[in-house]
């Protein structure tokens, strides 16, 4: 089932949570809503579910306008950040709850409910735990029960709020892979909220990056990482540094020299150059090299990072990857060359 979100505006009193958000989610897609806290990602998920009523805007499930459908009738599977399991019910009763509260015409007989719940329990690899209570399960197991419970109502879409947020790092990684498998097996349109970019990039087909109640960019993990559409996305995903540059005469100027990047169709005036550590290299005698001095060197995983300062622009301090073969020492003068990068106009 595809989901279309149109111009959703939502405010809590004076603070705006969503400022006109639109998003198309294809059927069967696994999409991540990624953003810092307060960006509106959870609010958007809750609006889709019907847990939050927007001030204006519409939500379509397929061709059906679900904007005024109460949450009970939206047929969504929602997995809560802290699982929200019913503590006084067994695992089996938790999973069967959605079926058991249907009106008598649509409610399957008790035996059928039980059979389906056991099937789901098998799907989430928890067979044998049906008579446990939530308090007797580990965090990861609770998360699986919560997912099975959401799947039991045969939802049109699956919505997960920070599904791995409350788990420790190891369990997180396992569950991530496992969620992907479940998604591929069941084919549900799935939306999940996360503030963890690794999680979003690894798991999702597409990522919607939110900031301050707006969607900054929607794209595949490669697109948002390699071609960030806005300064925010550049800053938020991966490592980056911003340097003040000037656009004049069809060229981008850094520290008084033109660099090789084209300003595209940007207007004249001050601009920001965004760089990742891989976008700059040490280059001894290239004509477009900029004189720079190494401030410090540190180890970062498999590579070494050098913090450098441009000699002609004392404010321009950034980090670049130093190849293993190259000897770099703090205090050395080493020209650098900018290979890639992205220029955004404005200060």
């Amino acid at each position, binding site marked *: 089932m595809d989901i279309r979100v149109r111009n959703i505006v939502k405010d809590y009193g004076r603070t705006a949570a969503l400022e006109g958000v639109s998003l198309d989610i294809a059927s069967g897609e696994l999409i991540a809503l990624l953003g810092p806290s307060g960006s509106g990602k959870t609010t958007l998920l809750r609006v889709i579910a019907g847990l939050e009523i927007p001030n204006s805007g519409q939500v379509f499930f397929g061709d059906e306008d679900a904007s005024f459908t109460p949450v009970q009738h939206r047929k969504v599977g929602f997995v809560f950040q802290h699982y929200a399991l019913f503590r006084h019910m067994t695992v089996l009763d938790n999973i069967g709850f959605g079926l058991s509260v249907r009106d008598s015409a649509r409610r399957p007989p008790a035996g059928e409910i039980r059979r389906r719940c056991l099937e789901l329990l098998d799907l989430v690899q928890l067979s044998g735990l049906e008579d446990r209570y939530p308090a007797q399960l580990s965090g990861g197991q609770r998360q699986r029960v919560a997912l099975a419970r959401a799947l039991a109502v045969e939802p049109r879409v699956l919505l997960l709020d920070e599904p791995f947020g409350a788990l420790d790092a190891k369990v997180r990684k396992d569950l991530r892979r496992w969620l992907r498998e479940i998604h591929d097996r069941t084919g549900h349109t799935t939306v999940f909220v996360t503030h963890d970019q690794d999680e979003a990039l690894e798991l999702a087909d597409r990522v919607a990056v939110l900031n301050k109640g707006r969607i900054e960019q929607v794209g595949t993990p490669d697109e948002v990482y390699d071609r960030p*559409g806005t300064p925010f996305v550049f800053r938020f995903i991966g490592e980056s540094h911003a340097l003040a540059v000037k656009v004049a005469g069809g060229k981008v100027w850094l520290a008084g020299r033109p660099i090789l990047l084209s300003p595209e169709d*940007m207007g004249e005036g001050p601009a920001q150059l965004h760089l990742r550590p891989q976008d700059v290299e040490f280059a001894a005698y290239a004509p477009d090299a900029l004189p720079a001095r190494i401030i410090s060197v540190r180890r970062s995983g498999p590579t070494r990072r050098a913090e450098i300062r441009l000699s002609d622009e004392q404010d321009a301090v950034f980090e670049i990857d130093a190849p293993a073969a190259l000897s770099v020492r703090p205090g050395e003068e080493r020209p650098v060359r900018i290979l890639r990068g992205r220029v955004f*106009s404005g200060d």
Partner: protein
Amino acid sequence: MPDSMPAALLPPSATKPAAAPDIRARKRLRAPTEDPPLFRAAAIALAVFFLALFLVLPLAVVFIEAFGKGAAAFLEALREEDARAAVRLTLTVAAIAVPVNVVFGIAAAWCIAKFEFPGKSLLVSLIDLPFSVSPVVAGLVYVLLFGAQGLLGPTLQAYGIEVIFAVPGIVLATIFVTLPFIARELIPLMEDQGTTDEEAALSLGAGGFRTFLRITLPNIRWGLLYGVLLCNARAMGEFGAVSVVSGHIRGLTNTMPLQVEVLYNEYNATAAFAVASLLAGLALVTLALKSLLEWRYADEIAGTHRR
């Protein structure tokens, strides 16, 4: 929005005007944790009615009956010698019982909250014991101990010490029923606070007693005050236990609650309610101060463990 945001990032249909939203339909939607308005109104009405009937009305009756025959009759009843003796006795009893409770409460909380020792949970249960004993039984056990036919009564009488039907018995019975109050407030509070503050003070060279006065006592002062408040209200208002040991000797062993009973049984309703209104006023002041403490110093009185 930044200039460089490519228009293609926005879904094409987003620029189309949305269908006019149905305002009324949206208004009918409720957040899923919000109750139906009718349900909500009925629940509030029922709860308010229940509390008004069982709490507000009895309280109102006390004051209305007390002033029913005018302020003069009210004052007259309070000026009466027996009534004044009852007030004096009640204040005396509270003045003894509350400090004993403070000492007991602090000592009990100190050893339970700051130390680990075998039998600790048994001690906690024993401290709670007076709460599960009927006040009448509390009075009875003192009669069995100190009464004329009691275990120790005759011995004490030989030395001229009267406990039962005298002030000492009233004080003892009052302490019995109020004993858990302050300890129960302080134990969870001091457990929460742990021992690090005291350890820091000791490591800085402060002596044990000074550490208690300068570190522990300021940390627990609001909780202590809270306990004193509740303890005092019960000490001044205790009826059942005191009634059994007092002997109802007017002007001598009648506390205010007992005086209320005596006057009421003599069909002197105005006087009974006049004395009762003083006690009701005490209850109201206690409630007001208690609410103030809960509201102002919620974290410092460990409100969650309250009963």
